[in-house]
């Protein structure tokens, strides 16, 4: 032992640490980074990497094909719009989110590790927000990477940079908005249960059902020329909400039929998104505070 002298050679004894300790900001960054990596299964078992890595690769394949075609045929423009890419391949994002949101939220509750985090310097609200940020960043990565690939492919193939950029950047912004909405909503759903299966099911159902409902009602409304109804219904799914903001506010191509028109409706889309995100985050923080007690 440290206080004894002589005798023991191999036991180097306990070494106290009186050195530098990092600020809450550094701790937060460390938690964010680890959460982000864990969303892709990095730092976890080999099995945990299968789903997120597969989804990330599957999301990239169509973009790779598009870029290859552009390069081979020497097209001046991509034949797939940046703004609509995400909604066409939204199934990949839904599966990724349904699989990985429980990893960042349900898993801490199920294993009980949440009590170790809450007994450390980061406040409860910060922990909840950082977990959400990790998930949002992971969703953003797998959604924006294909767009970036297509953009680089198009630009390097002599497409007009300004033309491409004016489509690309609004699409990326829209992906960011979608990532934040999805992370906060699915984070909340995952933090309400300790059963991973329940969380996965609830996320799949809520995202697919809401998306299908919006698409169906908008198709019927469009057929009957009920534009108002079509635009209001678009508020009910994260995908149509983000799509509405990017098409109405950022001038991108709409994937859903009821793209908001007029400043009032566009504002309603923006405010609804903010309320949805803030409301989910508040409920998430409240749920974590209860866990501390």
């Amino acid at each position, binding site marked *: 032992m440290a206080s004894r002298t002589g005798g023991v050679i191999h036991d180097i004894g306990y070494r106290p640490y009186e*050195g530098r300790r990092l600020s809450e900001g550094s701790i937060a960054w460390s938690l964010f980074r680890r959460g982000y990596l864990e969303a892709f299964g990095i730092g976890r078992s080999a099995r945990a990497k299968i789903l997120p890595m597969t989804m990330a690769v599957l999301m990239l394949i169509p973009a790779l094909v598009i870029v290859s075609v552009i390069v081979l045929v020497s097209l001046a423009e991509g034949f797939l719009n940046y703004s609509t890419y995400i909604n066409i391949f939204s199934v990949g994002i839904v599966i990724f989110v349904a699989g990985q949101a429980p990893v960042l939220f349900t898993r801490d509750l199920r294993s*009980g590790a949440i009590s*170790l985090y809450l007994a*450390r310097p980061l406040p409860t609200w910060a922990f909840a927000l950082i977990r959400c940020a990790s998930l949002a960043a992971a969703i953003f990565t797998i959604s924006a990477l294909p767009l970036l690939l297509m953009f680089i492919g198009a630009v390097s193939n002599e497409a007009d940079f300004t033309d491409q950029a004016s489509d690309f950047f609004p699409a990326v912004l829209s992906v960011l908005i979608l990532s934040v909405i999805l992370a906060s909503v699915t984070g909340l759903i995952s933090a309400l249960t300790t059963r991973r299966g329940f969380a996965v099911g609830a996320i799949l159902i809520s995202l697919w059902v809401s998306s299908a409902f919006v698409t169906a009602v908008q198709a019927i409304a469009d057929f009957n020329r009920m534009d108002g109804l079509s635009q209001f219904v678009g508020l009910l799914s994260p995908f149509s909400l983000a799509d509405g903001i990017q098409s109405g506010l950022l001038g991108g191509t709409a994937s859903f039929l009821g793209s908001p028109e007029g400043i009032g409706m566009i504002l309603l889309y923006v405010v609804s998104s903010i309320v949805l995100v803030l409301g989910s985050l508040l409920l998430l923080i409240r749920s974590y505070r209860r866990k501390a007690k």
Partner: protein
Amino acid sequence: MTVIQTAGLTKQYGSLIALNGLSTTIGAGITGLVGANGAGKSTLIKLLLGLLTPSSGDAAVLGHDIRTQGTEIRRLVGYMPEHDCLPPDVRAIDFIVHMGRMSGLPPNVARERAADTLRHVGLADERYRLMGSYSTGMKQRAKLAQAITHHPKLVLLDEPTNGMDPASRDDMLTLVSKIGHDFGIPVLVTSHLLGELERVSDNIIVLDGGTLLRSQATSAFTEVTGVLLVEVLGEDQSQHRMGEALAAQGLPCRPRGSLIEVDPRGLPEPAKARDTIRDTAVDLSLGLVRIQAEHGQIQDIFRGEPARG
């Protein structure tokens, strides 16, 4: 050195009083916090971590107010919860490094200390295994490791021996003793098994139904009580005959198992009781096997003695 100080600390959930006006001071070394399940031990720990707000009263941990300086406290304290808290799909080394970082250790220090700490708790060879494959004893050690990896100034251990077999329980208590006595980190350790902490703790706090029953040095619990235990050998209800003879001479006594419990504490000359017992055994022609001074146990204070301090 005062590590924890509480004054009238109370926590109430609706009509249930989990902790009732606790006023005590805890210093360096190992302090055992004992009490039955529901006595308020875990509530006290969560209050000390600043995770719960007290209904009334105050407390300071390492000089920091639990109401306003929770973050500071959680920076300085290590906590091992009672229940499971390890993600099964992570290797112990990765998890302890991560937890060190969550307590503010720089990356390289966190890595170095995680390896050291896992060696100290006896998980050096198993540190690259996923924690889901650990036995109960190994999980408890990993939980302990995450509580001490950042070199805290105080460690709060909630039921560290819970669910362990007797051998692992002994090992865990040895580790607790090592942390408190060799590493020099003050420890507050809880147990619902009243006698368990006698061996390792310097001081004992006993809670019962949220109320402080007693707080004093462990040696004070285990000192000689003044009661004598007598065993005799002979034919034909020897114990009964001996007991009656002692009672006839004015010594208060009663049977306790195969022994006779003699309580001379109320007599004018209690020291003479041993002579009387010896002489009585001779008179009755019984073999006197032993006269043993009884030592106190922590459990005894639940047998109706009035509370002190």
